[in-house]
């Protein structure tokens, strides 16, 4: 979808090229984050794709066409563009701002109106905002309008330069979640620049970690970058908590569950005690025909002959195969016996997760 080949940018009066022979393939429908320290050329690279910055040499192909041979104005109208400071037109109402590109490309009034309605519903914008001016909106509202405006003519490619950088962390997280949800149905090809590795991990299908001069240190899915950083630079950039960060990208089903202590309600108390002793957690799950009923411990079984004589207690928390390891870890460390029970659909008992099992994944 987007392919950069040997792209170099030298700015005048600068001895080192800002971007030096960068080659990169970006797959259609994916979010690719360019991330790196300041001066790594990530924004320069982004702006070369819509020719706000002209490459010194190299080739950039978008949708099968070499962009350096296209009219830059036409090219930019076909590519959505969102910047950190949003850049809404202060003298235009929100509605007029959203209509900007459709008007530039000459859509008729009816089509524009219909599209604005669509965008209002996609972005869940308050219709009362439409006749207002940007200065009357909060930072978070402006960011959403900025993204809606960039999507107005439904461009297949979007360039986003720290689009959620100017809002506070709580609003940022909500905007990121909203955007991921919208992207999951729109499937745009998105080049996303950020200096925040956590944002990159959250937002992207693939991460490109850049060093000075646009040197690619690693280009891989987020999980892989956290699991096996290519080199010292990536390890440093990703930071000390990379094991923990990775936990949110790996699901319980990825690492599989462990066998846990299980008895059926028809088991005798002695048999249940044997199972409890064998696993050493001090309790056992009670499972009837695949269904988890709860747990019992030795004390509860003290005066009973069979498991069905006591009422099994409910687990306070459990995880599902789709849960992230981060959530599983949370359940494990907050349980008294450091074990999380894994349930499938409809209370279906699958097994357990222990701290030991999860930490194997962290250390890897």
């Amino acid at each position, binding site marked *: 979808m987007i392919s950069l080949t040997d792209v170099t940018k030298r700015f005048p009066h600068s001895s080192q090229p800002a971007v030096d022979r960068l080659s990169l393939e970006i797959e259609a429908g994916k979010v690719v984050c360019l991330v790196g320290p300041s001066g790594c050329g990530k924004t320069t690279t982004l702006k070369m794709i819509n020719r706000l910055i002209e490459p010194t040499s190299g080739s950039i192909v978008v949708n099968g066409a070499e962009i350096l041979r296209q009219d830059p*104005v036409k090219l*930019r109208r076909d590519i959505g*563009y969102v910047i950190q400071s*949003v850049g*809404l037109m*202060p003298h235009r109402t929100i509605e007029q701002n959203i209509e900007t*590109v459709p008007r*530039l*490309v000459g859509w008729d009034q009816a089509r524009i109106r219909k599209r604005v309605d669509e965008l209002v519903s996609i972005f869940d914008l308050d219709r009362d905002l439409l006749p207002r001016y940007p200065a009357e909106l909060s930072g*978070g509202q402006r960011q959403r309008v900025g993204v809606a405006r960039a999507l107005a003519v439904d461009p297949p490619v979007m360039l986003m330069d720290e689009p959620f950088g100017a809002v506070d962390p709580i609003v940022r997280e909500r905007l990121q979640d909203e955007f991921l949800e919208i992207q999951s149905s729109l499937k745009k090809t998105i080049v996303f620049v950020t200096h925040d590795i956590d944002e990159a991990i959250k937002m992207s299908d693939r991460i490109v970690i850049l060093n000075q001069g646009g040197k690619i240190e690693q280009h891989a899915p987020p999980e892989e970058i956290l699991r096996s950083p290519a080199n010292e630079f990536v390890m440093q950039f990703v930071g000390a908590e990379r094991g923990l960060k990775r936990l949110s990208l790996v699901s319980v089903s990825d690492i599989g569950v462990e066998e846990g202590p299980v008895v059926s309600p028809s088991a005798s108390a002695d048999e249940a005690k044997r199972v409890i002793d064998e696993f050493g957690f001090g309790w056992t799950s009670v499972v009837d025909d695949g269904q988890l009923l709860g747990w019992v411990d030795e004390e509860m079984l003290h005066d009973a002959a069979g498991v069905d004589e006591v009422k099994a207690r409910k687990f306070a928390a459990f995880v599902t195969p789709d849960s992230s390891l981060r959530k599983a870890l949370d359940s494990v460390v907050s349980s008294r016996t450091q074990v999380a029970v894994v349930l499938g659909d409809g209370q279906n008992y699958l097994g357990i997760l222990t701290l030991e099992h999860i930490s194997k994944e962290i250390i890897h």
Partner: protein
Amino acid sequence: MILAQGEPLLEWDWIVRHSSQIFERFLQHAELTAIAVGIGLLISFPVAVFAYRHRWLIGPVTWFTGLLYTIPSLALFAFLVPYTGLSTTTAEIGLVSYTLLILIRNIVAGLDGVPADTREAAIGMGYTKRQLLWKVELPLALPVMVAGIRIASVTTIGLVTVTALIGQGGLGYFILLGLRRFFSTPIIAGTILSVAFAMTVDAALLIGQRALTPWVRRKSPGLAS
């Protein structure tokens, strides 16, 4: 002192008798002002836009128009009369010269005040250079530009009175007349009308600017996001 002994400061009688002449001179005053500011804008606008795009020009342009601005008006008119006579042309050359510095500076300042992110977003969305200027930069520069037009207009209205010395002058005619005859009534009438005219034009331009730029005053902290 200009006052002759025993005469009242203002003779209403004289004003009533000369009302049609006063009106005529007022129209001349308005015309001289409008032409001066109009031609001033016609010159300043392209020069300012050009200098804004070729920034090295801003220095020389400001220097030259600043030089024009410092020439005493009397001297300028005296210098021009041998070439263009006691004419409207002479008056306008002087009046226009004095508007240029203020207008060019304010137009450039207005364009400079356009937020860089707005400009970048506009180019990134596919505005041509011309569309950027007319649809983004100029509307956003309007408040500062109008501020310049207001100062230029008020200055010009005051300066028009001086052109009475070369047979023009609008309301300045009465000021000069009064000075020559030691007669206070036309001086006071001419001055008050000139000041009132300047204040009216200033207010009208401000109202016009506010009507054209509704976004400037509509700022609130915003709704909860």
